């Protein structure tokens, strides 16, 4: 067993070495050092197994067995502006960064709407002018010392997406970071990396999406770091719409400073196996977090959401609503941790996870966890797993709506609870369509 595991890791280790050789000398010294540190850690770490508590219900062994080819020198592989239409948003066409198979695709990106000191660029372009910002923040939050997937991503940082909002800047246009995979001769691995820094009092909306133009097998290992400075407000939508045969491991690490507001909505629709780790640290007083999620797992899909909300200081609030829809032999995992540290008085933390099972074979493991070390706090959590109610279906039937459409309408309504909170109309409508498509239904609900 151990031997096999080592062999599986060899594939990734050789990719890391090859990458270091190829990139040697072409990046800033601090980045090379960071990559070497991460590579050294990756060599020592093992990929998680189901014996690890945090990975108990998600087995990555099948993913590690696949003979992936590391995307070191792909071109845009035939993706065109037209082919991107279904995976982009009309409000963000001039504030769009596109990465194809892990590589920055300048010809598909368009940041013409971005101005006034706001930076939306790939790392390579930012290294020259914003070296200190990147050096200070990149890999400062996502833990590559103990997490194998994060170490792997960090050891392979070549390019990535960088968003910077200067102090007090309000960006009305939503910013879209698109990570696209298009089919290659062999299964591709890409290591998307995102860094977002919202300066003091700045406000913006960022959509981070993962998509594919075909139904191929590939592996996306993404790491995103987010800093929301004092008084800043960031709306962050994460849309995972990979191919149904893909593997997606994503980590989002968020640091919130005093009186900042961070609203997250993580939507998981694609991939055969998807895992998203979201950690939010409320590091100072008066911080507010709204952490929503929606996962849809159809037949044979596995969607795992692990969240951790860390209340470190008094007078902060977090509200979490994660909803899941499971069909066929779809499977989901929700693990939601809330920490209330010593002294984090008047914390208001709420968490709710609701699951809808559409078939008898579908299943979900849900695990809310509260760890409270402070007095005078308000904390609630709950989890439900249910099916469509017969009385609801009957009610719709008595209004002339047939069983299939009634099921779709109720399922859509279940998801809508999360979708309706999205503050951008076109994104909301696009998500409505995507969710309905996922449910194989064409309901006219807009």
């Amino acid at each position: 067993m151990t031997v096999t595991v080592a062999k599986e890791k060899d594939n990734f280790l050789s990719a890391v070495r090859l990458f270091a050789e190829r990139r040697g000398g072409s990046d800033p010294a601090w980045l090379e050092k960071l990559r070497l540190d991460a590579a050294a850690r990756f060599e020592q770490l093992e990929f998680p197994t189901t014996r690890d508590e945090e990975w108990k219900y998600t087995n990555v062994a099948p993913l590690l067995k696949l003979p992936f080819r590391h995307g070191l020198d792909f071109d845009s592989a035939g993706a065109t502006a037209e082919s991107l239409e279904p995976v982009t948003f009309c409000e963000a066409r001039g504030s769009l960064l596109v990465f194809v198979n892990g590589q920055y695709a300048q010809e598909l990106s368009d940041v013409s709407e971005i101005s006034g000191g706001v930076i939306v660029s790939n790392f390579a372009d930012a290294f020259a002018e914003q070296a200190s910002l990147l050096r200070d923040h990149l890999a400062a939050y996502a833990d590559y010392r103990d997490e194998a997937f994060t170490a792997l991503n960090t050891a392979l940082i070549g390019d990535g997406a960088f968003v910077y909002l200067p102090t007090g800047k309000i960006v009305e246009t939503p910013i879209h970071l698109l990570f696209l995979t298009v089919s290659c001769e062999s299964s591709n691995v890409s290591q998307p990396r995102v860094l977002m820094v919202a300066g003091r009092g700045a406000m913006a909306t960022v959509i981070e999406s993962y998509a594919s133009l075909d139904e191929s097998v590939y592996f996306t290992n993404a790491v995103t770091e987010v800093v929301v400075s004092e008084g800043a407000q960031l709306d962050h939508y994460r849309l995972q719409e990979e191919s149904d045969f893909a593997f997606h491991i994503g980590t989002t690490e968020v640091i919130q400073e005093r009186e900042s507001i961070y609203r997250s909505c993580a939507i998981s629709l694609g991939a055969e196996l998807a895992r998203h780790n979201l950690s939010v640290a409320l590091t100072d007083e008066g911080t507010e977090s709204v952490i929503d999620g929606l996962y849809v797992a159809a037949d044979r899909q596995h969607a795992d959401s692990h969240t951790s909300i860390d209340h470190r200081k008094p007078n902060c609030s977090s509200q979490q609503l994660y909803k899941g829809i499971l069909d066929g032999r779809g499977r989901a995992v929700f693990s939601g941790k809330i920490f209330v540290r010593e002294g984090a008085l008047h914390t208001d933390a709420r968490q709710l996870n609701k699951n809808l099972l559409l078939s008898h074979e579908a299943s979900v493991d849900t695990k809310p966890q509260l760890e409270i070390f402070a007095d005078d706090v308000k904390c609630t959590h709950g989890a439900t797993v249910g099916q469509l109610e017969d009385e609801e279906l009957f009610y719709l039937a008595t209004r002339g709506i047939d069983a299939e459409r009634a099921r779709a309408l109720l399922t859509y309504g279940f998801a809508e609870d999360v979708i309706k909170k999205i503050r951008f109309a076109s994104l909301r409508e696009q998500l409505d369509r995507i969710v309905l498509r996922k449910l194989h239904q064409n309901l006219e609900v807009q």
Partner: protein
Amino acid sequence: MLEISNLHAGIEGREILQGLNLSVQAGEIHAIMGPNGSGKSTLAKVLAGHPSYVITKGEVTYQGKNLLELSPDERARQGVFLAFQYPIEIPGVSSANFLRMAYNEIRKHRGEEELDPLEFDDLLREKMKVVEMDTSFINRSVNEGFSGGEKKRNEILQMAVLDPALAVLDETDSGLDIDALRIVANGISKLATPDKAIILVTHYQRLLNYITPDFVHVLFQGRIAKSGGKDLALELEEKGYDWIREAESDRRVTA
């Protein structure tokens, strides 16, 4: 329009309707009254096709067709409407979308063009005046967070939009204040045209102060124990159901 003969039906192995007969013609309003547990709501649910109820005996003919063979949604498309005693909440689905979908299903069945959202909006606003509902309600989720009275008014609104041939109203008057009762009664009266029939299932006489039924039936132990005109409702209001109970037990002893 509707012929029920010797209907036996029950739920979970318990027979509740025990040989019910009822004949309803177009243009008629029938009130079905009776004590709790007499089978009033069962009758309403059986007519709408609730899957939990099992028909063990008897026939129901609607517009010349065997109603019991039709699925609930098929019955609705053919003009049978049930106003629920406890309307169901549908989170995440706006009333406008829900009603348009239901309305278009019925139009499709009739071979008519479906209405687009704008056309439907005009119709909906018109019908909303009937139940004196605030227009803000159309974008709210169906029945979610509605008061009891609002839910009942919403049932009447749905009835007004779907324009059924046969409307069965299950305790629509219960839980209503005087204003809501007047609004609901007004909505029902608007539907009472010569080509339609209405069955009002009610525990109390008060709705009948606003709507004059052509027939009043007293349901007792799963069958109609007594039928009469509107005066019977007044008599029941005055004397309660005990005299029916006594008459029935006498009848059973004699039989």
